[in-house]
């Protein structure tokens, strides 16, 4: 499915993934989002976002080896398909900055 733009959480998840080197799984991505934005995101939410993006061809995934720390359950690693994702990110960044254009003084005043 062709996409025109990201939802806010989708954008954050993809950025989180890129910050972690372009490939990771839900737990570190959720932790990264919490660290950077202060927003408490559930790993389950992150997983579902990545699952959805993968179904749209924006991410690819592979299953890692089962880990005893997780009770033997496998990890699913997601990798950013840069060719598909970067244009969308560029567009959302452009749109956001364009909206901010001329509004910075408002922030300074508050």
């Amino acid at each position, binding site marked *: 499915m062709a996409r025109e733009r990201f939802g806010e959480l989708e954008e954050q998840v993809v950025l989180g993934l890129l910050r972690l080197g372009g490939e990771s*799984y*839900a*737990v570190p991505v*959720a*932790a990264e989002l919490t660290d950077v934005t202060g927003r*408490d*995101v*559930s*790993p*389950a*939410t*992150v*997983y*579902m*976002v990545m*699952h*959805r993006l993968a179904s749209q061809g924006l991410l690819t995934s592979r*299953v890692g080896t089962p*880990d*005893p*720390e*997780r*009770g*033997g*359950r*496998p*990890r*699913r690693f997601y990798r950013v398909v840069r060719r598909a994702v970067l244009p969308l990110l560029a567009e959302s960044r452009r749109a956001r900055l364009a909206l901010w254009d001329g509004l910075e003084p408002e922030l300074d005043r508050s």
Partner: protein
Amino acid sequence: MSAGRSRVPLSLRLAAWLLPRDVREEVLGDLVEAWNAKERSESWFSRAAWTWKQPIAVLLARVQARNDARVLPSVARVSVDLRIAARSLARAPTFTLVAVTTLAIAIGTNTAIFSVVETVLLDPLDFTEPDRLVSIRGTAPGSDMPDEFGLAAEFYVQYRENAAALEDVGYYLEGEQTVRADDRVERLPVSLASHSLFSTLGVRPVLGRLPTEQDEDAQVVVLSHWLWTEWFGRDPEVIGRTIEIASGPRTVVGVMGPSFGFPHERVAAWLHDLPSEEIRPGGFGWELVGRLAPDADQVVLAGQLDELASRLPERFGGSVEYARIIEQHRPVLRSLEEELVGDIAAPLWILLGTAGIVLLIACANVANLLLARAEDRRRSFAVRRSLGATRGDLLRAQMVEALVIAAAGGVGGVAIAVGGIPLLVRGAPESIPRLASTTLDPTALGFTASIVLFAALASGLLPALRFSNPALDGTLSSRLQTGTRSTRFARHALVVAQSAAALVLLVGSGLLVQSFLALNRVDPGYETEDVFTFQMAPVLRDHGVTDAPSLARFHYAFMERLAALPDVESVGLTLMLPLDEGAEVTRVVTDRTIATGGLEPLVRVTHAGGQYLRAMGIEVLLGSDFERNADPTENPQAVVSQSAAELLWPGETPLGKRFRPSDADSSSWLTVSGVVEDVILEDFRRTEPEPLVYLPLVGHDRASWPITTPAYVVKSPRAAALGPEIRDLVREIAPEAPVYHMSTMSALAARAVARLSFTMLTLGVAAGLAIVLGAVGLYGVLSYVVSQRTHEIGIRMALGANASGLRRTIVAQGTRVVILGVMLGAVGAAVLTRALESLLFGVPAVHMPTYAMMAGLMIAVALLASYLPARRASAVDPMTALRAD
């Protein structure tokens, strides 16, 4: 070990379950990993809050993922439904009150009992990685050792040095000691503990340090937080102070945190203990706690320990008996949590199950009420359908109503739980670990939230499905008088289910009541009425006690003072009191064992003096009671119980025979002067008598004075009121001595059956609730049927039916339904009461008279509940009834 898989919190499983099946395992893996990371870094509270956020996060994310366009309007519709539901419930206050109260009682009961279960059974122990901790005990089938027993010093040394599957191992022994600091003195539970116990548990002190291998044996002590708080006002200067415990000075080196109470919360201090350099093997009774190595599990550990134990005699020597025990010995491993919780787990799970049954009954009641209400509102539903409401709209409107009722019930339930938890805690046997810290925490509230949802579904779904049915369309024009067949079937089915569930509870509580009565009928061999008992711990050297004769003189003088109190009939003393401290275990040597070289028999042993046997009402069967003897004699006399006599001298006259404990020196023979009836030492359920020997107050030499802090027994019709007088007397004679373990024998007997009486009481309350709710449900159904059939009854009456015949028909209808429920309930009870088996005594789980009695009670209640509506029906005036339509 599969610990990782089993230790997943319910809330995380719920979150995963809310997801599509194909991603569940992976998401659950993520959640568990994140949770484990939090376990290392965050407080219990924030972890619990986090776990319960997860299912909500998943739900929100799923809603988000749906088509945005659809979500918003349906949210708006639900809020309209909510307003409508609230308004229509407010218009039917009686209905609302009954439904909400019913659910509140059931939800409150469940919340309160769940809180207890959670605190006692589900919360992980407050130690580092508690699931790697194991309790190590032993068994030696075929030997005369108890079924299971604590190990000994040599096991600890051997395991600590050689068991690769153990990362660490420690030991502890429990006891009671006199603790003195400044002017304060009390007898307190303390624990002797190896320094490795603390490292094994992975705990740290809040103040000071823990003992180390370099500390000398028994010289240093770690205080519990409560002792530090109550005795020392949390003074940090306590470190380095010397206090007196067990008549020796100990240096305080550390203070533990408030949550550390090991093996239980009442322990006041941990005395550092090291095994002696020269171990005499076979001193059993040490409790070992091990920490599994990261890659090991209990099976591997059991194999290693078995192998290591078998090599103990070759390393430490020991007697022939010891070698035989080791030959039979197998390690008994269980998780530390299981060991600490002990046998209270079964009653608690039974209580939670009981509460669950009460909830089901309450839901059935509310479902019935909602069915009746929906029946009344058929026309209004039909009107809404004809105005374009979809089936989904009607379904949602009714479910929202059920949810509002359940939520109100949940709020009421939480209030009931807040009031009920302290009652539950107070009523429970005092020995339940961690019970006192039971509170309504976020996990319990989460549980309440889930049962509110369950109650809404269980009580609302059936009526909602029935009355959103498209078949409703035709009803607008119909007369709608008697209700449809299938509705009546549904309502009767609910009453059947209710009666069945109530019968299960009634049978269960009936069985427990009979067990309780049977236990109270057991003859323990002594009187429990009119006997007062206490202990005191004087500083003996201050009273000139230096040897056995001076100790005996001290005790005799004190007992004379006791006997001089008004209304005191007899006074005696014993080293260990039945039902309180039991008795020690020893092997005894007799002429027969010497002659045959056979195994020295194992018997229980205690010391007694004064008029102990008379005060306790223990009958002397042969020979005579103890002699009063303050001087050591060449030939000290002892008394043995009947079963001890049969064990030691089968087929012979025991009087005049001699024996000695195997650990006494070879000249310490005692001569049997009397044989007394057997007594129950600890457990009323024990049907086999335990051989017991009573050794005298003074042995054969001046150095033998084992009775330092005996239990005194005082026979008096004023037993329950003697406490203050005895305190005064002790203050006068030995002002420095703490008085403790003050109790009547009847209170000790009640304590011995506390676990059963607690379960019985709570199950009885639940059964009472069940039968009341069941009766209300039946009454409701029949009243409704009667009111719906007023028209038909009027016609019958007009045609000459007589009133009593009509009453019989209606009563029979109600009773038939209940009898069906009783039959199903009997089958259910036969299956479910097996869970009670460990609590039952003197009555089998399937006990026909109990079943018959409870079924009879249930049917009698059904008759009563049906009679009231029946009478109303037969009072119908035919003319009014016919005109009404």
